[in-house]
């Protein structure tokens, strides 16, 4: 995001940072460093990721683009070892991910938010319980995970997270009775409850209408500005990549095609990355929203 700290106050809905990390600090340390990442799903299959390398710095956003099946989701999951990579070096928040044992891996994941294309909220539980789940790693007792039993302190914190995504009035609603946009914002509130230092988002706006998608992307932008959280997001909307990414990483068949600052990316030339799209195959999104 090419937004200076000075602009923070002008953004509507921007709130004071909760846990203060100094935005615009002169020294931006690396939050995530990946080298030589390789993954294939089966012995007989082709490599899904080959020699992928990139760096994400504090308070920076990296937009990952690439055609369907180019390996974006796999890359994000591999960084947190939700999928076990075959080889590679991953250093996250100063820790070596590949050598981490189960316990330290859990502790590391606790600091990293992950927002999915499909919100992945737990159905049948209330919105507030879903947000409380974000604190599972630091509030280890099961009674902290449910709205009915959690102590007031955690409930208040969860409500504050909901307030930041503008959904306090839905706290008691069952999470399977929400619209797609509301669900995704609740998922972000759950991530906020983690007090994340780094956020991964896999096509967070892809199943939302343009307005809701914009709101979701804006929430990530705020999180970066206010708290210096690094954001790694994938998207198919090049406009989002241009406006919300500081850097753009393009994947093609599991290889990094380029990784450069957003100002140096020729977005019009990029459309070839996806091949020409005949009019008949235009997505409903394009047809509906131009």
């Amino acid at each position, binding site marked *: 995001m090419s937004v200076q700290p000075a602009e923070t106050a002008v953004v509507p809905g921007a709130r004071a940072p909760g846990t203060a990390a100094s935005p615009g600090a002169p020294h931006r340390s690396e939050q995530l460093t990946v080298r030589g990442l390789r993954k294939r799903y089966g012995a007989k299959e082709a490599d899904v990721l080959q020699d992928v390398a990139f760096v994400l710095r504090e308070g920076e956003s990296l937009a990952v683009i690439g055609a369907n099946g180019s390996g974006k989701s796999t890359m994000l999951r591999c960084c947190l070892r*939700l999928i076990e990579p075959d080889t590679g070096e991953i250093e996250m928040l100063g820790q070596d991910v590949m050598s981490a044992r189960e316990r330290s891996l*859990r502790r590391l*994941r*606790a600091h990293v938010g*992950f927002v999915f294309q499909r919100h992945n*909220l737990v159905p049948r539980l209330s919105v507030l319980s879903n947000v409380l789940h974000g604190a599972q790693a630091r509030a*280890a007792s*099961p009674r902290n*995970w449910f709205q009915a039993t959690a102590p007031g302190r955690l409930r208040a914190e969860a409500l504050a997270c909901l307030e930041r995504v503008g959904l306090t009035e839905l706290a008691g609603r069952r999470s399977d009775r929400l619209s797609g946009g509301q669900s995704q914002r609740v998922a972000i509130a759950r991530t906020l409850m983690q007090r994340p230092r780094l956020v991964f988002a896999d096509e967070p706006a892809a199943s939302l209408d343009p307005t809701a998608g914009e709101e979701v992307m804006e929430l990530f932008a705020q999180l970066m500005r206010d708290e210096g959280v690094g954001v790694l997001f994938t998207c198919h909307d090049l406009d989002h990549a241009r406006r919300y990414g500081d850097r753009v990483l393009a994947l093609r068949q599991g290889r990094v095609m380029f990784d450069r600052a957003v100002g140096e990316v020729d977005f019009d030339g990029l459309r070839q990355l996806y091949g020409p799209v005949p009019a008949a195959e235009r997505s409903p999104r394009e047809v509906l929203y131009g």
Partner: protein
Amino acid sequence: MADPTRQPDRRRELPDRLPRPDALSFTLYVAVAAFVIWCFQAAEMSVSTFIEGVPSMGRLVSEMFPPAFGRMDSIGATMLETFQMAVVGTVLGVALSIPFAVMAARNQTPNRAVYYLARGVITFVRTVPDLIWAIFFVITVGLGPFAGVLALTVDTLGFCARFFAESMEEADPGPQEALTALGARRSGIVLGAVLPAAMPSMVATSLFALEKATRSSVVLGLVGAGGIGIELKAAMDMFDYNEAATIILSIFALVVLVERTSAALRARLI
């Protein structure tokens, strides 16, 4: 240009109405048919014996009328005890089933060995009939309702754990992955994402288990494991068919009541 009447007859090209069995499946069909016929013979089926038995059936039924309601209060109390056994057995069995189901669900089990062990226990417990469990517990803990409750608990475990495990396996992996990604432990994932998703089907299964336990509980008394069964056996042994009729009618009433209530609850659940 195409004249339909002049089109070649294509019926020969149609596939057979029934697939032709190959030699192996044909042999199998014949073997199964022969086996079933052999089973009928072994069961000593005899039309004449059955016809000879009809008059005594009629006599037995007529001797049951009118049902004797003299000891209704004592029968009622025992019926209540029977149902209470069923409730306790179901509650304990369901509670025990949850950890077993977690170990026996492919996507939740801590490791392969635990998985096969849990599956094995559940299969064993399920395949041994409830009356045999009742006999086992009568011998080990003595006569009375406690033996019956233990038998019902074990029987419910065999029934519920398997279905619970299946509904846990069917739970949407998305929320589970989300919780894994935010650093939750296995217990957090089970409690936070798997159980909420499996809950409706687990409640329905538990209600079925209660129906099953109610039906079982009425016969456990036959082997001395508490409940109405012992009363029925005593009445029959003493040729008190009028009272036996009352007991049978009470059993019928209880089972129908439980089944209806459970069905209504399950319908509301969906």
